[in-house]
């Protein structure tokens, strides 16, 4: 499980890999927090639940990360604990996080640009481009 930033001229691109799909979603969220330089108060004092439906896993991933962008901008919250359940075209995530104390960089949006979740020998991987 991990992520690495991929060079992109104007925006941000990150490659994420994990042993299974739920872990890939959780790691993608952590990658996004890391790129944005999000710092929160200590501990996981807040819980939220996110549910969504989409025709495919890529659609669910964009919806999930877009929800986190909204929480960051509108409610000043960031999450790093995730319990992800994916059944067919439905996603449910129990999230734990805390109030943000500082952010280096705002993410405007999560894009579908060349987005493809691929099965590998080790699990799953994808590359996500964020508009910043």
């Amino acid at each position, binding site marked *: 499980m991990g992520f690495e*930033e991929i*060079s*992109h*001229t*104007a*925006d*941000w691109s990150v490659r994420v890999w994990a042993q299974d799909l739920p872990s890939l979603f959780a790691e993608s969220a952590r990658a996004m927090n890391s790129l944005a*330089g999000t710092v929160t108060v200590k501990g996981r004092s807040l819980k939220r639940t996110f549910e969504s439906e*989409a*025709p495919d896993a*890529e*659609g669910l991933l*964009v*919806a999930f990360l*877009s929800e986190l*962008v*909204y929480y*960051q*901008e*509108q409610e*000043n919250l960031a999450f790093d604990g995730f319990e992800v359940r994916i059944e067919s075209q439905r996603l449910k995530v129990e999230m734990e996080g805390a109030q943000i104390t500082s*952010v*280096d*960089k*705002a993410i*405007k*949006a*999560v*894009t*579908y*640009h*060349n*987005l493809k979740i691929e099965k590998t020998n080790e699990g799953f991987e994808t590359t996500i*481009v964020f*508009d*910043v």
Partner: protein
Amino acid sequence: MNIENLIQISETEWEIPTYIRPDMRVPVRLFATRELLEQIINDKSLEQAVNATTLPGLVGHVIVMPDIHQGYGFPIGGVAATEYPHGVISPGAIGYDINCGVRLLASNIDLESARVEMDTLATLLNKYCPSGVGKAGAIKLNAKELDHVLRDGSRWAFKNGYASEADLARTEEAGSVEGAAPERVSERAKTRGREQIGSLGAGNHFIEVDVVDQIFNEEAANTMGLYQGCLTVQIHCGSRGLGHQVCTDYVQQFQNAVHKYGIVLPDRELVCAPMDSPEGRAYMGAMRAAANFAFANRQLLAHSARRAFEETFAPRIRNWHLHQVYDIAHNMGKLETHEVNGKKVKVCVHRKGATRAFGPGSPGLPPEYKKIGQPVIIPGSMGTASWVLVGTEESMTRSFGSSCHGAGRVMSRSQAKKEVRGDELRKELEKRGIKIRAGSLPGLAEEAPSAYKDVDRVVETVSEAGIAKKVARLKPVVVIKG
């Protein structure tokens, strides 16, 4: 993409023909010198331009400007026109920051007489123009007022004392795009917008005080009220979280629309729907509402900038006023009529990182600009020159009345942060007499001048190509960044 794939038309114009890839519907036309092209081919922007040629209903060429660089889906610096009403509209070909644009205000204040006050001015601009990640704006709107903003744009600002009639006249669409549909904007988008109006945001957005450094077209400069040695203000920002959410919502919804209408695309970020479909009409209404939000946002920031000018200069300088030169959009989809293969065609011109550059006599220009053409405002990278141009008759026939929008990035943000330290950059700019107020030093490093192309070369290219004419060059003296 290799340079060998391109056909050279002239010193500043190239074509990517449709035989390069079987799914291309139209060719790509690129405005660039060979030197700029050699930079452009280093990223994936031309592949993205080729992907853009697969949008159904395209006419003419997909046009790309010399400041083109890799974006997501559609390249930044691209223009695509789809025939109305059956052609498509693509949210990703307009971008998340709907109606991101630049407003230019000008004064009769001579820099030399005002240099001692630049520090005070920088501090007051920074105080009155909120900037930074997620920062709330100058005012907070209730739901009903926000709907007024979404419907009326700068006209709402005028009714509430934040704008003059002259401001409206010197704004694209008079600051109020017709056909806006606030009811097509999600509650989530409205929530994001309610507190952010009148704020700059972060990223590459800025407020800059510049001095008119050189005049190239005396008549046009006089008409715009631009005088050598005098101060101007540029405001670069867009529709903030509201626009980002509108685009996010519709890119998500259009994932289904492409299946419904049997549209096959090489990249899901290009998703689109016919303009005459329920989905296309809904997005068009929401996009226009977000555009009105952006016009009102820049208007409120202009109001705040005037307050900073008044407090700084009014005690000593009688005419401290900032008059509006023009306000342009560079991320927008607009219904316009253009000549294609000798026939007038109504099209939706998608401009993403490209500026409308209407020539003399074009519809919608204020009377004083009918003769000279529309002002085109080209902000440079931080610490470098910016330009004021005018649209030409040739831009109308060769680029759907469009020109470039800035310098264009050449270096990734992560590379820029590796090569440049924010604190050192600030010191270097301050040494050159530029006052900096920046919310984030890493953010400052990402926007370092070395991360961008040379704006002067970009402007020379569009000028040589004939799709815009030089009027004035501006030099920065104060930079406010989120």
